[in-house]
């Protein structure tokens, strides 16, 4: 009796001590986490309710900033360009990423090397990628248009032409990210047990049948993951636009994040900038929630 009591007492002491240890281990990360994530998050909401140019005192504005941002035709334009980007980029990386992943899941010669090559652009910076593609897609002296000219094709103006500018950004981005999609889908493919496919072969299923009825359904959770992540990243597109077109020509590729930046640091409307950034966050959350809700319809075991 007394022994168990003592054991319990020592356990309580140990538990209390563990709490202090936990505090000590967590403090170095918890302090910056609160200071640089939670406090600014709340402050963003506070700033969005004020009229402020970052210098003179803040003036209460209620929901005026949200009204102004929602009523501004530029907002609709930048959201539309961002959606154009996301809808161009997603199918490209998905189709090519899936094709490459399926091919490189087979025992091909030099498979590891090939995987490494497709993944290479993922580790480079968006700015470098944008600068390089600006050169490749240069309307007059770029190598792409020069090669097209060999075949008698008069290449487009790419980033210098309002109708082709977003396509150029999408192309460069897809080149950079296709390896990322490939790696995620390869991991998904490798988690499909070999027995499932072997059983299907015994049942007389051909390769196409196996792809449609086994591989793709079992891969659907990975595909879902890729779609969710790609859309979240796609809506936040900025770096490559900044370095490739700076939103031009004539504002044709101006995206939401660039507008947040411009409102805050160029036009001295920090309140509207914060309001627009929160609006973008809300849109991203909504898009993600809709996908989570819709996944039951097509994702295996969701």
């Amino acid at each position, binding site marked *: 009796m007394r022994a168990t009591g003592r054991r319990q007492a020592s356990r309580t002491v140990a538990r209390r001590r563990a709490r202090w240890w936990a505090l000590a281990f*967590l403090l170095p990360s918890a302090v910056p986490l609160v200071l640089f994530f939670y406090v600014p*998050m709340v402050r963003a909401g506070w700033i969005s309710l004020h009229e402020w140019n970052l210098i003179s005192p803040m003036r209460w504005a209620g929901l005026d900033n949200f009204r102004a941002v929602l009523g501004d035709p530029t907002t609709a334009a930048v959201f539309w360009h961002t959606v154009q980007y996301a809808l161009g980029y997603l199918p490209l990386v998905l189709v090519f990423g899936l094709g490459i992943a399926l091919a490189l899941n087979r025992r091909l010669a030099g498979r590891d090397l*090939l995987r490494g090559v*497709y993944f*290479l652009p993922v580790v480079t910076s968006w700015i470098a990628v944008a600068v390089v593609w600006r*050169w490749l897609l240069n309307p007059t002296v770029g190598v792409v248009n020069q090669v097209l000219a060999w075949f008698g094709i008069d290449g487009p103006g790419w980033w210098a032409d309002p109708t082709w500018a977003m396509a150029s950004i999408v192309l460069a981005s897809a080149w950079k990210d296709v390896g990322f999609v490939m*790696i*995620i889908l390869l991991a998904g493919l490798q988690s499909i047990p070999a027995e499932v496919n072997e059983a299907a072969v015994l049942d007389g299923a051909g390769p196409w049948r196996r792809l449609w009825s086994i591989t793709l359904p079992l891969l659907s959770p990975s595909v879902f993951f890729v779609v969710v992540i790609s859309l979240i990243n796609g809506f936040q597109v*900025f770096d490559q636009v900044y370095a490739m077109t700076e939103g031009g020509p004539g504002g044709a590729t101006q995206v939401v994040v660039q507008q947040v*930046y411009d409102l805050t640091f160029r036009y001295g409307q920090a309140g509207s900038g914060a309001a627009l950034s929160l609006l973008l966050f809300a849109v991203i959350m909504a898009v993600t929630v809709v996908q989570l809700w819709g996944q039951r319809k097509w994702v295996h075991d969701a």
Partner: protein
Amino acid sequence: MPRATGVRSWVLWLVVAAGALVMLFPFWWTVVSSLTDQTALGQSPSLIPDNPTMSAYRELFSRTPFARVVLNSLGLALATVVIQIATSSLAAYAFSRLEFRGRPVVFAAYLATMMIPMQVLLVPLFVQMKSWGLVDTYLGVLLPSTVSAFGVFLLRQAMNAVPRELDEAATIDGAGHLRIFARVVMPLIRPAIATFAVLSFMSSWNAFLWPLVILRSEELRTLPLALASLVGQYATDWNVLMAGSVVSILPMLALYILAQRHVVAGIAGTGLK
């Protein structure tokens, strides 16, 4: 894994290999262009430079503070890696090994920060740094990345895989939490730490939006910032721009090739880059 045989697999291989060449071409063309003389640029393109010259690199390093810029990027990236490993591994240990009330809630509060997009934090973070007098300083760039929820998550996963019997054995030998953390758990999760180190280096090396907002002076700039401003400065000197791109891309490629296994494992396991 299906074994590919016959003509069809050869066709498949050719397609995949051709695709890989297409993927490699922009890198090759960047190097070739950086070694081409300004006057020869844009004339009949050839895969190997006719008269390779280092003039673009000389221009880059003599006319712009690019050497300083490389050091800035390197210093900031290394500092980020060291700090993030320290803060993340300590927190991961608490979540993996220490019992305390509200642990799941605190862990969720950590993970939730991964969902907050940078551009929402942009304005308030800038204001905060301004009030602390940290605009246009290295510390201002560094502070928001002193913690990584992704790192806490990754390292906690690795620590959970370390058998608890090892801790118990160490406890019997009289070791406290600090010693178990440093001598038992950390050495055993070295592969996960390596993965995290590479990914954290990569995100710091390539970061653009926050440094763009917080840095002003030319001599504090990081590589992506310097490269972006080079576009304005050398609009048509494509050889100089390509030399700048090579300088920016090459160290990351080298690191990737050295640590390929870790990078791929980390990204495939978590989906974060």
